[in-house]
């Protein structure tokens, strides 16, 4: 009798998870966050900036993250102009250090620098290394489900928490029900929650180490009519990474 009750409870829980009917905005964004912030990760990626006139710049970089995205290190490999430049972000990008190999100088950047474009791209430092920001800096609210980019999606509105200093007033996310990958994210201006600033579209979703991973991203900047494409060439999850990797000494290597 007890076994039957447990099985019933489990089935009902499973149904609610599969159907998503009972999932709150907070529960969905928690799953999204868990997918995005794995214990440790390494990746090699390209980032291509495309201007409104069609000019392109492509960067190749290697990045490491630890403690579910709390620590991040990005090192540029190409082009030669920026080779070996590195950025260390700790405490969910609240602490940022940049290393410039031509001068061998490490510069501590304040949190306002998170607004700056990474290498002139449409991604800001905040977009790249904000770790648990979805959970800690925003309040999630579930909207009516929608189909987006051909996927059946949960639609969420994330509104900036009152005590947070993040750069976006709110975000709208379309999260694929099947794998909790946010297929589209709309970012709204810091001072004007009605004004769409940027849109991130993810594609080429693969399962790597049991973790659904979007391999391609395009960030559209509505203000400048530019876009930046990012493609993950290689990804590894849950690999051993020493804390020493996320230090000033390591930045200079």
């Amino acid at each position: 009798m007890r076994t039957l009750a447990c099985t019933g409870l489990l089935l009902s829980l499973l149904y609610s998870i599969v159907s998503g009917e009972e999932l709150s905005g907070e529960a969905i964004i928690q799953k999204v966050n868990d997918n995005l912030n794995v214990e440790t990760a390494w990746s090699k990626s390209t980032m291509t900036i495309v201007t409104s006139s069609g000019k392109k710049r492509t960067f190749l970089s290697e990045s490491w993250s630890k403690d579910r995205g709390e620590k991040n290190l990005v090192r540029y490999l190409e082009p030669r102009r920026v080779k070996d430049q590195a950025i260390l972000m700790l405490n969910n990008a609240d602490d940022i250090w940049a290393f410039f190999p031509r001068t061998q100088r490490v510069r501590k950047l304040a949190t306002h620098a998170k607004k700056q474009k990474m290498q002139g791209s449409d991604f800001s430092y905040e977009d790249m290394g904000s770790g648990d920001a979805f959970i800690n800096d925003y309040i999630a609210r579930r909207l009516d489900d929608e189909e987006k980019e051909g996927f059946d999606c949960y639609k969420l509105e994330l509104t900036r928490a009152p005590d947070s200093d993040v750069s976006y007033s709110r975000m709208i996310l379309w999260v694929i029900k099947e794998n909790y990958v946010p297929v589209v994210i709309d970012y709204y201006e810091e001072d004007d929650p009605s004004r769409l600033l940027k849109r991130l579209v993810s594609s080429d979703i693969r399962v790597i180490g049991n973790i659904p991973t979007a391999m391609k991203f395009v960030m559209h900047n509505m203000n400048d009519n530019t876009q930046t494409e990012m493609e993950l060439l290689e990804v590894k999850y849950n690999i051993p990474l020493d804390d020493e990797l996320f230090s000033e000494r390591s930045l200079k290597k």
Partner: protein
Amino acid sequence: MKRAIGLMLALLSCPHSAGAQDEVELFGYFEPSVMGVRIQGSTRQLYTNKLRVDLKSALSDNITFAANFDYITYHGTTEWNILDFLSSDLTSNVPQYLRTVYTLPFADRSFLDNAYLKLAFDRFDLTVGKQQISLGTGYVWNPLDLFNIKDPLDPTYEQPGHNAVRLDGSLGSRYGYSVLFSADDSWKNSAKMLRFKGRISRFDYSLVAAETVWRFHDYTRFDPSWLDFVELPEQRRLVGASTAGELFGLGTWVEYGYNKMETSKDYYELVAGADYTFDFLTYFMVEYYRNTLGKTGRDLYDLNDWMRQYTAEQKAISRDQLYMYISHPLTDFIDLGTSCILSLSDNSLALVPMLNYSFAQNMDILAYLNFNIGAEGSAYAETTGSGGLLRARVYF
């Protein structure tokens, strides 16, 4: 020089196994530039071509060798007499036969700028050889840097390498230390430095103690036996501290160094700066610099003060200075900015509008103009001329 070229060629021609760690990376840049100055009704131009060739090789997981060789040619006005830029009050006492010794020559040169071996251990790195040394948190001025003096018009330009043995270690995730020795002709004259680094809340800090020989010159006395101005070497002992972090949303940094001199008067230097990026991506920075070696008014500047500034023996001629910089990304590839260097001691200023353009994937262009606005004899006197620089850099 020939030995340096030979060494580079030998390194490049060494047979290497197919292992990735044995590969020598070869890269660098070519940098043509033109600098123009309008002074006393005439225009002078200096054209420079710089070729920098870098090589880097990871000999194993823990051993890295890196070097770079620079070849620079100069064209146009290749001899600049500093007396031409100074007021007649200061230069009238210089005997005619000595006027030529105040000339700064720009002669073609080639040299091994850096060549070092870096050994990485679990808890420390050991770097041996000619290497860049960057100390302090200041953007334009660094009281803790015994080795370099930046050009306020171009403060982020790379600095030359210095021969040194350096050990950088970590003490946990928040603390670290550096020990540096840069050899001179004797132990006493060699530079020695100890630095402890740490982090409290959102602030990085460092404590520094250093000693070196400092070679001031008396630019009013010429030593014919050395064919140079009379050298006044003395021990310089430096203790100081720096910090960088965030206060009220602003990036902030402070750097302080007290210099105990063996014979001349002790002095201190202080830098305090702040920066901010607005939501519309405009970036603003301000940095204050005090140097008690500098004078408090333009009437007090003498020939030695000017020469020591031009030859980088001291960072500024006036006691109190303010640097302000504002920039904005016009497009993804073009940044437009202006810096302003203000001498608070003599109320003169240099205004430097500038443009940075990422022209191609591996090509940058920098252009700036330099307008000096100040009374004759001041740090940024109109009579010292106004000018500009156009510089391209192609990376390979």
